[in-house]
């Protein structure tokens, strides 16, 4: 019989949407039980399970099981993998090994421009000044004492997906291709409240946010209604103080916008009437088009999705497969995810697992019976503003292959005749 642990019923799944049901799964699995159990130890017996024994003492915090091997991977630019950590510029989240939609804090992707600073929260200060009535200095305790908001949002490096601009390395995992996006719950002080306290001049519509890292990373942020309503200065990450790699003691959270705008180790907010044109918003995070012109202030992260299982370098067997993955959009909520298991010829709507939150990653899944023939599997997301993730050919036709950042084309995984899953362009 089928091992109960293989039954992928998600109790949080939304029954109103297409997808799995226990009855359908069991009906399907009955006819395919042979293929599912094939490969298990022939003499699997409860008698082989080790007896119960007294466990370890309680501790101050919990470590992962020694049986769980899971970590980020530090990488440099496209094609520059397996680098020495001192040469890495980012560290990618193991999307293929995670469940649900929340990224564990220590596995949230990491990007820094001059290392992770060691900041003493007692000595850290936030200066809020510029075109304001009364410039103020806040310490971390000041911020923690103020009214707060908590929100689950994704943060995505604009370089996510950049491995596949020009070619597809077939040895890449989904961690390599899409590991620069993560979702956490962040807690902090609404930007709007800080703005009210300093009395921002009505003529100021741009804000410079600057980090306390060695590089002093700084970005100009337009104060649109959306940003005024949603941005906040966070000190909490998944219920605890920020991890150093993610901005301890405080960072800016800009739901739906470029990871680089979520300034870490935040130490200064300055209000002005135009953008500052810092290195990061001119020479770095701009997208070169085929004609040699660069798109600037492409601040919002696009509608995106990727199948995390089966995904690059995995092996599958004929029969039942649960396809699962993550979808997200800087425009709002994911409205639907469609999956093709026949090389984008036909599409079927996947089940979205609850909760489906705006500007957060959403888990999707779908039943699939693989017939053992070579094929390609693809996911395509649509958000609640009607934005549809583009196929790669149209995407490249519109942008060229030099943009480096903001890659959100459909991700295709090929499956060959022996069940090997590989990264391909389309």
């Amino acid at each position, binding site marked *: 019989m089928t091992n109960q642990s293989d039954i992928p019923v998600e109790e949080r799944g939304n029954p109103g949407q297409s997808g799995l049901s226990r009855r359908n799964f069991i009906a399907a699995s009955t006819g395919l039980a042979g293929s599912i159990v094939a490969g298990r130890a022939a003499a699997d017996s409860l008698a082989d399970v080790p007896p119960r024994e007294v466990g370890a003492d309680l501790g101050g915090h919990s470590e992962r099981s020694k049986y769980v091997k899971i970590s980020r991977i530090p990488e440099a630019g496209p094609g520059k993998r397996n680098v020495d950590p001192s040469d890495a510029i980012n560290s990618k989240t193991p999307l293929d090994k995670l469940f649900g939609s929340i990224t564990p804090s220590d596995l949230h992707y990491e990007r820094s421009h001059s290392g992770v600073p060691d900041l003493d929260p007692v000595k850290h200060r936030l200066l809020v000044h510029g075109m304001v009535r009364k410039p103020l200095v*806040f310490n971390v305790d000041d911020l923690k004492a*103020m*009214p707060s908001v908590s929100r689950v949002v994704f943060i995505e490096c604009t370089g996510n997906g950049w491995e596949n601009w020009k070619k597809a390395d077939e040895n890449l995992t989904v961690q390599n291709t899409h590991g620069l996006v993560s979702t956490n719950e962040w807690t902090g002080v609404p930007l709007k409240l800080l703005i009210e306290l300093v009395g921002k001049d009505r003529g100021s519509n741009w804000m410079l946010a600057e980090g306390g890292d060695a590089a002093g990373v700084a970005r100009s942020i*337009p104060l649109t209604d959306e940003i005024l309503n949603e941005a906040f200065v966070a000190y909490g990450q998944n219920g605890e103080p920020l991890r150093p790699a993610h901005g301890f003691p405080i960072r800016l959270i800009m739901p739906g916008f470029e990871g680089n705008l979520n300034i870490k180790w935040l130490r200064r907010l300055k209000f002005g009437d135009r953008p500052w044109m810092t*290195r990061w918003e001119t020479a770095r995070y701009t997208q070169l088009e085929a*004609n040699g*012109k660069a798109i600037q*202030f492409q601040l919002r992260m696009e509608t995106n999705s990727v199948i995390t299982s089966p995904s690059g370098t995995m092996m599958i067997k004929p029969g039942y497969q649960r396809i699962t993955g993550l979808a997200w959009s800087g425009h709002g909520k994911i409205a639907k995810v469609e999956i093709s298991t026949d090389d984008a010829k036909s599409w079927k709507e996947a089940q979205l697992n609850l909760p489906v939150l705006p500007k957060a990653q959403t888990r999707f899944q779908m039943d699939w019976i693989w017939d053992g023939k070579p094929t390609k599997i693809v996911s395509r997301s649509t958000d609640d503003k009607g934005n549809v993730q583009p196929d790669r050919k149209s995407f490249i036709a519109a942008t060229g292959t030099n943009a480096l950042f903001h890659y959100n084309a459909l991700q295709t995984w090929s499956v060959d005749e022996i069940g090997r899953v590989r990264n391909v362009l389309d």
Partner: protein
Amino acid sequence: MSSTSKALLTGAIALALGSPVLAYDFGRPATPGETALWDIDVRPDGKGLPPGSGTVAHGQQVFADNCAACHGDNGVGGIKDRLVGGQGTLASDAPVKTVGSFWPYATTLFDYIHRAMPYQAPGSLSNDDTYAVAAYILHLNGILPADGRLDRDSLSEIKMPNRDGFVPEPEFDPAKLFRTK
């Protein structure tokens, strides 16, 4: 944000603004003296540039002492970003983005060196040395003559070769944003 938290927040702001004493309980006034220590940003119109000046010739020495180890002797061939050349490559299959080929504003060069370089000791260059090394990098790119000199007036007047090479995303175009309100 849910409507409940919006309502809570609105209430919190009203509460904070309704009482100046409470407002001052959140943070303290910044003094002009301390603000000047951190107020380092420079805009394309030159606002924020400090006094001082530097020559291409002096910049060559500053560059050799502080920059060449990572960026190469002439801003080419180092282990970190290439700073020189690349003009005419932006529309090719292998674009080379450097200060000379890509950066739209010379003021950004000063701002970036001043805040972030040299990598191991950012902020350690004097204002004069920062002007000088910026002048040298612009000279290597054919933008300043060998006897060139930079100060806050001349820096903001430089037109970089790729000044017109950027197209704003329509949603956040600074020339159009906020103008209709």
